[in-house]
């Protein structure tokens, strides 16, 4: 019988280790986040600006999309402060003829349509009190826009195929339940029927949603973003500050559970006239709750070339909770050194794109 470590046991160990190694762990937290980001970002606009908005508007219809933009940009040529929006244009509209099989077996063009997403974020920098008074009263707003899409998104894994059968079985059971609502409205005499609830169906549906993000086969994705500075938060003062592009290609096997990803990313700082190019790869092997991986990234920077090499070990304690260890060599050669040595406990609060 499989036994996972309990959350309490692991938390105690991690607490001890973190507080015995507080200083290097904090210095390396940034390295850890970079290690984890060897994939196309889900919201490239946010990543380029280096922000994690506390609140993101995600409209689901054309009306709410338009309303969100109009409300944010209603002040004429003054940009909104700290606004974030993410939207998938294809899914703002109904698609009554798009079946699940059609969605899963989409060609390149249809995949592109189904997966394209837009991200838009503003971030306002308030100037410190000791600068020019006029400048302090007129903060700079940064705006970033990003676009991300897949060209190849793989196909259903065996687990997804099984989950679909589970759902079909649960739905068949649900259909057999006789309800007052099965009486035609014109023949009903009693109170309105009560809403129906099918927990087994819901559990199976959520499982399918999760497994849809773990498709196997060839995966190909790209993203781009650009960031603009607006002095005094005025639209007329737009100035390109940076732009970036990402491309990710990968192959995921079902059995054994092996994933190989290659990433290219390019960032250009237009103001400093400097560029960064990263090229790297990651291989990940999963065996039960244990995941082993290795990552190599080569960076071409203005001053020099660097590389990062890391090994990653992850153990799933329970759903959404992972114990992870990362060890290797990071890009930096500064005072803090370039050793990566992190042990952490991760709580998954949202879904991350796998590619």
């Amino acid at each position, binding site marked *: 019988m499989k036994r996972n470590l309990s959350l309490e046991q692991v938390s105690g160990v991690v607490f001890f280790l973190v507080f015995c190694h507080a200083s290097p762990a904090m210095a390396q937290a940034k390295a850890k986040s970079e290690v984890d980001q060897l994939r196309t970002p889900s919201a490239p606009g946010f990543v380029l600006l280096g922000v994690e908005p506390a609140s993101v508007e995600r409209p689901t219809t054309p009306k709410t999309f338009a309303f969100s933009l109009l409300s944010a940009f209603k002040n004429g040529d003054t940009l909104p402060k700290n606004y974030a929006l993410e939207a998938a244009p294809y899914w703002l509209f109904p698609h*009554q003829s798009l079946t699940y099989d059609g969605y899963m077996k989409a060609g390149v063009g249809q995949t592109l349509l189904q997966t394209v997403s837009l991200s838009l974020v503003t971030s306002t920098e308030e100037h410190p009190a000791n600068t020019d008074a006029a400048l302090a009263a007129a903060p700079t707003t940064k705006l970033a826009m990003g676009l991300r899409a897949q060209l190849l998104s793989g196909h259903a894994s065996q687990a997804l195929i099984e989950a679909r059968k589970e*759902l079909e079985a649960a739905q068949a059971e649900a259909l057999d339940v006789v309800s007052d609502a099965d009486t035609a409205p014109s023949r009903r005499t009693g109170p309105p029927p009560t809403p129906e609830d099918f927990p087994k169906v819901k559990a199976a549906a959520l499982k399918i949603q999760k497994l849809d993000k773990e498709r196997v086969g060839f995966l190909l994705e790209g993203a781009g973003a650009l960031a603009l500075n607006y002095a005094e938060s005025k639209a007329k003062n737009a100035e390109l500050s940076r732009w970036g592009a990402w491309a990710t290609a990968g192959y995921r096997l079902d059995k054994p559970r092996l994933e190989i990803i290659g990433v290219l990313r390019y960032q250009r700082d237009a103001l400093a006239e400097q560029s960064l190019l990263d090229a790297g790869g990651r291989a990940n092997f999963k065996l039960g709750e244990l995941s082993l991986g290795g990552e190599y990234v080569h960076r071409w920077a203005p001053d020099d070339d660097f590389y990062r090499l890391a090994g990653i070990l992850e153990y799933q304690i329970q759903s959404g909770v992972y114990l992870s260890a990362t060890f290797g060599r990071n890009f930096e050669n500064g005072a803090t050194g370039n050793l990566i040595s992190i042990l952490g406990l991760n709580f998954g609060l949202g879904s991350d794109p796998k590619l």
Partner: protein
Amino acid sequence: MANELETDYFVADRDIDIDITIGEAQLGSSLLRLDGKQLAKGDIQHLTISNSTPLKDKVLFVKTIVSDVNDKTNLTSVVYTLRGGKIDQTFRLSVTVEDEGDSVIYRAWFNLK
């Protein structure tokens, strides 16, 4: 209610076909009864309902469960297409579920006239 439909469908003196399309990349399953007798269950595509016993004045009841398996939208929809009657007709129903993974039961009563 947006998930219910009761309507007349005028038959001719021949078999009728029904197609049920679950849209928005969601997954669903249907159950069909003709005057209370179960005809079919599952994924209904090009199902022929025989006119060997006249269909006139019978009620075709279709119950469809659609589950939100698509995390990109909470919109669900079902399209019923009936052919073989006096005219071919298409009926569309759509509901947005509140939470991820929720299901909708659609019900349609076709009074065959």
